[in-house]
């Protein structure tokens, strides 16, 4: 049963069909959670007693930062699977995730810097988290650049899988070294959302937004994967038939 499931999911044609059916579900649930999360986050949740209203950017910033790391781990895991078992569909997932991951990383950096201007008085500080997030963005950009530079997309996918794995080994080292560097070079006066306990009225919208972003990622990665599959299999018969059907 499970073997059959994996076997079917490994087939581009089957994956294409299933992904096409799943995308609307992901999209609808993404929109519902997005509206709910934004409404409760921006209107219902109380203002912060220190930061006032400007803390509300957290409802975009924090989930985006979580996604930036989550997507990298997804990429590394699917990279490992595609290197070990040579499953085409996980290769496609690695590639399709890279751009989404880079966008979330950029979003986290941009919202963080927008928040930093009123709070810290400058757009950018060499804070440990900002710096490691910036380096994460570079890692994503490296993956995208390498993929676009290699002509043969199957070779590119495997090269990128190795790079994602090398990156995932290094991310903790980079993160801790940056944190260590930061504590040495900067006074520890800056603590972002330093209070570990968060009121439920703020936490619930935050988690809703986190789920919403995950659903968005699911929808987008499936869309991109479908496009990638059609491009890779453009000479296969089922794709030709699909195109002819669309044309009618």
């Amino acid at each position, binding site marked *: 049963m499970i073997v059959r499931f994996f076997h079917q999911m490994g087939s581009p044609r089957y994956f294409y069909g299933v992904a096409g059916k799943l995308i609307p579900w992901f999209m609808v649930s993404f929109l519902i959670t997005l509206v709910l999360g934004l409404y409760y986050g921006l209107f219902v949740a109380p203002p912060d007693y220190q930061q006032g209203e400007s803390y509300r950017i957290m409802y975009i910033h924090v989930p985006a930062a979580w996604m930036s790391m989550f997507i990298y781990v997804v990429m590394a895991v699917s990279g490992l699977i595609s290197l070990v078992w040579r499953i085409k569909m996980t290769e496609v997932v690695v590639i399709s995730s890279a751009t989404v991951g880079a966008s979330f990383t950029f979003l986290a950096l941009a919202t963080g810097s927008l928040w930093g201007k009123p709070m810290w008085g400058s757009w950018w500080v060499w804070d440990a988290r900002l710096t490691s997030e910036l380096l994460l963005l570079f890692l994503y950009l490296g993956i995208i650049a390498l993929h676009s530079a290699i002509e043969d997309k199957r070779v590119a996918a495997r090269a990128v899988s*190795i790079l994602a794995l090398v990156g995932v080994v290094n991310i903790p080292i980079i993160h801790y*070294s940056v944190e260590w*560097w930061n504590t040495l070079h900067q006074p520890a006066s800056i603590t972002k959302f330093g209070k570990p306990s968060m009121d439920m009225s703020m936490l619930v919208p935050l988690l809703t937004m986190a789920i919403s972003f995950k659903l968005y990622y699911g929808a987008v990665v499936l869309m991109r994967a479908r496009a990638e599959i059609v491009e890779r299999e453009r000479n296969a018969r089922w794709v030709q038939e699909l195109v002819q059907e669309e044309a009618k």
Partner: protein
Amino acid sequence: MSTLSLTSAFTLLLKRDMTLAYRRRSELVNPLLFFVLVTAMFPLGIGNDPKLIEAVGPGVIWVAALLAALLSLDAMFRSDFEDGSLEQFMLSAHPVSILVLAKILAHWLVTGLPLFIAAPLLAVLLNIPGDAIPTLMLTLILGTPVLSLIGSVGVALTVGLRRGGVILSLLVLPLYVPVLIFATDAVKTAIVGIPTTAQLSILSAMLVGSLVLAPLATAASLRISLS
């Protein structure tokens, strides 16, 4: 097929690469010259205040070493890739990761070691006090092999590309950050006169870790690049 032991294959490859490097002596000097030039540009850019130069000195030397290593990386597999000998290594009966290690070692002896030898001179130019120079040398001898090892993965991934240079720096520089942080911090700590065992231990750990893992990743990447 004659049987060649792994050790002799390793030494043969190392000797071959060293001979090749020796025959192209002018290329050998390039990374070193680059290292010295970049370092000399900094005081011209930031002004000749001795205190300022001393403060940025360790960072400047290490960033210059990073760039020099990056500049020379591309040559690691390039000529072997172009004349096809890289494919022969892949076909050999010996584990590719060990053969790759020989090439990395040769690369480091040619490009990393000269930086280590030139470093005291640059340290003097940048007002780094004499007491801190041994620490600087130690960080270089521990850190530059890591640069070659991590870099080899990037080179292996980009060796088949026509315009690999820019991508290579994008792939490799973020991975160099930990070395840069701990090495410069060790030197700065030594200038103040505080023991630097912690930083040096971490650098050694990075060296050992990359020595074990990087050749494997490089071998796998080469297989992909040549497929």
